[in-house]
């Protein structure tokens, strides 16, 4: 939580906020001089509550972003936990490799729960999951996900790449917020490391013999995983224009290089459409 940003935000709608907070601000300033993490931990609870009651918008949208992230981390953690628990699914040779990812996803869940709680929010609880993508019918497009290792890794691939896109899409909602944006970007980078690692594993096992650690799209198809059911998860990755610069026509690179060099974001709505009612069960 970047307290001063929040005060700046509030000032836009309430120009007198600084005057009214003045005595407390002096205290806050002293606290932050010890470092922002201490500040969050030590921030008087009353101030957080007062902000929420009077000016809910700013901090609510941050916790909404974090709860959206937590929703995805719950899904990923549950996925790897289920894979590890299923006897005979993951070969012994790959178990340590995949356990690193499982460890990270579970750590992300704990970390986000902690941050949301610190901000005075209520962390979302785990949902019911159907890793076949069948919304609890168990017969979705990845019907053998927990019995066929290749399918398991294909789903892992799609979840990781989608996770990267989801975090990226939320970054502008946390703009300028050092204490929340930095860890969000740091999780984003770890998801990208996972995505690359799963891609390398699928390639080395011959399950996707030509796949690269990065997403190499064609001019018309973002999806490079060889899993047609995931086409929508990669929709937009075929974009070759960045910041108004068409990389292919202006800088003379191939579509493959242009698309592999830049990962594309997804909106919250797009991500929800991709995972809710399929992997995340709805009533």
């Amino acid at each position: 939580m970047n307290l001063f940003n929040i005060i700046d935000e509030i000032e836009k709608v309430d120009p007198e906020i600084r005057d009214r907070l003045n005595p407390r601000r002096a205290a806050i300033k002293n606290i932050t001089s010890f470092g922002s993490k201490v500040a969050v931990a030590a921030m008087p609870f009353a101030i957080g509550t007062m902000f929420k009651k009077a000016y809910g918008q700013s901090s609510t949208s941050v916790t909404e972003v974090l709860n959206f992230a937590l929703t995805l981390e719950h899904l990923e953690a549950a996925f790897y936990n289920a894979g590890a628990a299923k006897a005979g699914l993951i070969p012994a040779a790959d178990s340590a490799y995949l356990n690193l990812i499982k460890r990270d996803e579970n750590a992300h869940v704990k970390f986000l729960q902690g941050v949301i709680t610190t901000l005075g929010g209520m962390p979302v609880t785990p949902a019911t999951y159907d890793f076949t993508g069948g919304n609890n019918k168990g017969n979705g497009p990845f019907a053998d996900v927990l019995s066929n290792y290749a399918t398991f890794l294909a789903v892992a691939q799609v979840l990781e790449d989608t996770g990267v896109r989801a975090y990226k899409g939320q970054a502008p909602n946390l703009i300028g917020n050092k204490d929340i944006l930095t860890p969000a970007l740091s999780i984003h980078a770890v998801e990208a490391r996972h995505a690359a690692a799963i891609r390398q594993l699928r390639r080395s096992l011959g399950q996707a013999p030509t796949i690269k650690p990065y997403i190499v799209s064609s001019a018309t198809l973002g999806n490079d995983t060889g899993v047609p059911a995931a086409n929508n998860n990669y929709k937009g990755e075929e974009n070759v224009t960045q910041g108004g610069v068409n990389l292919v026509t202006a800088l003379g690179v191939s579509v493959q290089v242009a698309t592999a060099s830049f990962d594309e974001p997804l909106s919250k709505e797009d991500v929800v459409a991709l995972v809710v009612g399929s992997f995340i069960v709805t009533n």
Partner: protein
Amino acid sequence: MKTELNPTTDGANMARRSFLRYAGASAAGIALIGSAASCKKDRIMTTDGIDIGSGDIGILNYAYALEQLEASFYLQVIATPYSGMTSVETTYLTDIRDHEVLHRDFFKAAIGAKAIGMLTTDFSTINFSSRASVLAAAKLLEDTGVRAYDGAGYLIKDPGYLTIAGKIVSVEARHAALISNLIAPGSFVGDDQVDINGLNKSNTIAEVLGAANGFLKTKVNAVNYNYKA
């Protein structure tokens, strides 16, 4: 949130340690660090340096400087392949070269007239005929790139620029994981880069430039971000 962790200090130590490792604990390396440390007092030494500037353009120039460094490195890696480079390694390293060259050219085009100039690199500490030396340097550059983007993201004011930085940092993270796995399979989220919360470590501009300048003849400064080589 863990209050006892101090990623910043840890990052500084890491950057310094890596710098020492890759710049070589040679006399030349030590001398270089010595001169860098004394530059604060003796600014005449750095009049030939470049400053990234301030605001979003400053951050974009910071990224541009790092991409220039990475691009130059991989151009050399592919021009003079190390002995025993496998075909899959050639494919990956060529891809990464193409990505970094594109990142460099993209920033140059996007920043336009306010872009910093071309940097002159100094890779004298890297043995380009040695797989271990090249991959260790690649790992350092990729890991540093990820930490740099993650650490500077909050300084960006324009949401469009932030998104572009996000589009690039995940590709750098993919490279970092790939290179790490080439060095030691299964090291894609090693605890040298990822903390116990599952967060990639990040670094300040000063920390990153302190390490990056070890590979640069043209020193890059960031006086608005408390760093002068």
